[in-house]
């Protein structure tokens, strides 16, 4: 264990926060979505690092599940984006404010 677990976790935290910033700052729905994927990736990195630290596979399995769930989410999310685009011709999330208050 030359590189410490902590380093991996720190890296993952940085990536996670970057992803969160992406969600907050980008207006393109696809971009927001990609930022969320980045957050999930960061969580995966932390999980794998912890899995090596603990020496059991649970963390890796968690990652496996997260990746697959992300695939499902991506499919539905992109379908939603396409559907919205058909109706509104825009995927700018700032234009989605029919309902408020």
């Amino acid at each position, binding site marked *: 264990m030359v590189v410490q677990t902590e380093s991996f976790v720190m890296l993952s935290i940085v990536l996670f926060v970057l992803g*969160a910033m992406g*969600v*907050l*700052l980008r*207006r393109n729905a696809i971009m*927001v979505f990609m930022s969320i994927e980045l957050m999930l990736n960061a969580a995966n990195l932390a999980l794998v690092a912890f899995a090596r630290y603990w020496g059991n596979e649970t963390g890796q399995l968690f990652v496996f599940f997260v990746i697959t769930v992300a695939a499902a989410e991506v499919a539905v999310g992109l379908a939603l984006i396409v559907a919205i685009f058909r109706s509104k011709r825009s995927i700018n*999330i*700032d234009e*989605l*404010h*029919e*309902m*408020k*208050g």
Partner: protein
Amino acid sequence: MAYYPQLVSLIILIPAIGAFINIFWGARLGEKWVGTVATVASALAFVIAVLLFVYLEGSGYEAVVINPPIFDGWIQIPAGEVVIPWQQRVDTLSSTMMLIITGIGTLIHVYSISYMHGDARFHRYFAYLNMFLAFMLVLVTANNFLMMFVGWEGVGLCSFLLIGFWFDKAHGVGWRNTMAANKAMLLNRIGDFGVVMSVLIMFWTFGTTDYFRPAEIVNVHLAEEAAHAAEAAHSEEGAVAAEGEAANKPGDVVLAQEGEGEGAAAEEAHGEEHSTPGVVYVNNDHIETDQLGVFGQAERFLDEGRVIDIGPVQLPFSTWLTIMTLFLVLGVTGKSAQIPLFTWLPDAMAGPTPASALIHAATMVTAGVYIMVRSNVLFYYAPVTSFVVAMIGALTALVAGFIAMGQWDIKRVLAYSTVSQLGFMVAAVGIGAYAAAIFHLVTHAFFKALLFLGSGSVIHAMEHGHHHAHSHGHGHDDEHHGDDHHDAHEEEFDPQDMRNMGGLRRKMPLTFITYLFGTLALAGIFPFAGFWSKDEILADSWVAGFDNNNLAGYIVFIILLMAAAFTAFYMWRQIVLVFFGKPRTEAAEHAPESSRLITIPLVILGFFSLGIGFMNTPSYVLGLDNIFGAHLFTDRLEYSVSKAHASEFNLLIALGATALAVAAMFLANNIYRRSAIIEARRDPLEMLPTTAPFWSLANARMYWDAFYSRVFARPFTRIAYFLSDVVDWRFLHDYFHDVVIWKGFNAAAQGLSKPVDLGVIDGAVNGVGRVFGWLSSQLRQIQTGYVRTYALSLLVGVVLVILVILLPLLQRG
């Protein structure tokens, strides 16, 4: 075999399911399926009843109590730790009732399929019938008074629904039906008040409403063993004494009786043994009082001479018991149509005839008798109540029999006859002849159901005949029958008026024969069923009066004898008016025989009216007891009715009563053969100056209804009018409602709704409201509608949560 008694929960469930199906899907199923579902449900219940009966036969009549799985701990009062279980009891009494209810019920279902054909509410009718069966079975299988009361109220409801079934008939008939239903409901409520009071008193006194508690039930078994042992000892003894009757009944348990034929020594021996075979009290000594049911505790209390402390007064338990049972009797007079609450039953004939046959003749109205016999222990120890009961019963029998002689409506005659016969049963209970009462209940159920169904057949035929006679010419298609279709275009004709009938015996031979059977049974002619049961009541009252020197016995015997004569008279009058002579109207001329679905139940019931009496043949009668066995029914009944006893045949009474009946029939025959008077729509008795006042009295139903309406109903209505008009309408509505509530509320609502109108509360009622309104409008600014701000708020939450949760740990270092 061991699982048979568990079926008793199904016996309720199956008709209930049938009712459920017909209520919800009946309209879609169509007549065929509705009838099938209902009849199959009823028939399945009958099969279960038979299985239970077979089980009881096989298990030595040992009572079984079943806790159906779903209602365990039906009512729980948490503080008092009182649990009223939904327990069902299978013993000889309830088994008898189940057989009658489901058996006759099934026949009536079959009959109804044809009778109700074409009715707009066909499915509803069958749903009600099934519902009635379910509730009636709840009533008779209950093991506590509260559950019994559930059934009691349920059958009352079904009765109400069925009496008012044709509430929308044309020409005011519907209104009359509705009123009849209301009347039944109201009078029964008065009775129900008595039942509720009685049950409450029981509960307060004993802490339970169970008939018997589980501990006792185990004991029944033990008691039976003891009885067997005692029997063995006794039969040896009896053989030596050459006096015992045990030898007559090989293989049967010897039952203790207070018969007149026994020697003093034997009586002494029996005295102790007396209650052993049925229920148990002897062996219950080791049981704690609170482990006993109502009856066991009552006996124990009597033994102990307990004093009941009801606050200001202290009553001996026997007095308390009298009060308790008197309240119960009030309920009985309601449900079983006894004086003073009997006037609803004749009106109840407004319902469909099969329903009348089932509910208002064979089963529901006997619930009062059933519950009195069920609580025979209480009545046994309450002589005052018993006397009252005997008087009520005898008087009812006489009065109703008298009224029946002056009626023209075929069903009304039968209705009063039912009241009268119920009076016989109640009187029998009053003199302690519990077995005879139940026996009469059973036989009466068969022949009265038969008579009602027969009258239904006649009425049906009359309607057809009338219809046929009038539809010549305008070619009305024949598919529409069923009662309410005819009313649309027919006015004056009353198919139930016996004056319109006559000569039907040739038109409807099968109906005639079966009707004749029913009449003979009701009149008590040998060997029909009524003969045996009526004779047993008479013999018992003779014994009670002349042997045991009981005042009630004398009175009951004499009155019942008269009532029996009345019975024979009015029944033969009916036969003559309906079936003999010549047809008096076109309708009678064209009356056809009814369809097979109607006649088959008639034949079956006719057969039973003839034969069912033999199940309780007394000993030493024409050798019949060698064929059918003696006291079979009573013997079985004694396992559940501990104070029941078999009575002995008294040839003199039997002959006398029969002779009286035959004489009355002859009299009736002679009087009513004069058809000319009847064609003038008058009664021959009306023409004779000596009998005219009596006849008018009978025809006017002895002014009972008029009396009630003048004394109770009218003042009540006046008060009600006063209350509704002056107090409610003028004061409450006009002033209180309009001014105080309406205007005040309006003002308040104005105050409230104005801000609502504006959407945001700015003209708010008070400062707090304004503050919240302001807060609300400010806070909703957060909800911008932009996803990114939502995400931002989520992130704020994240940071907040992390900081709050980590704060203590970070402080710790």
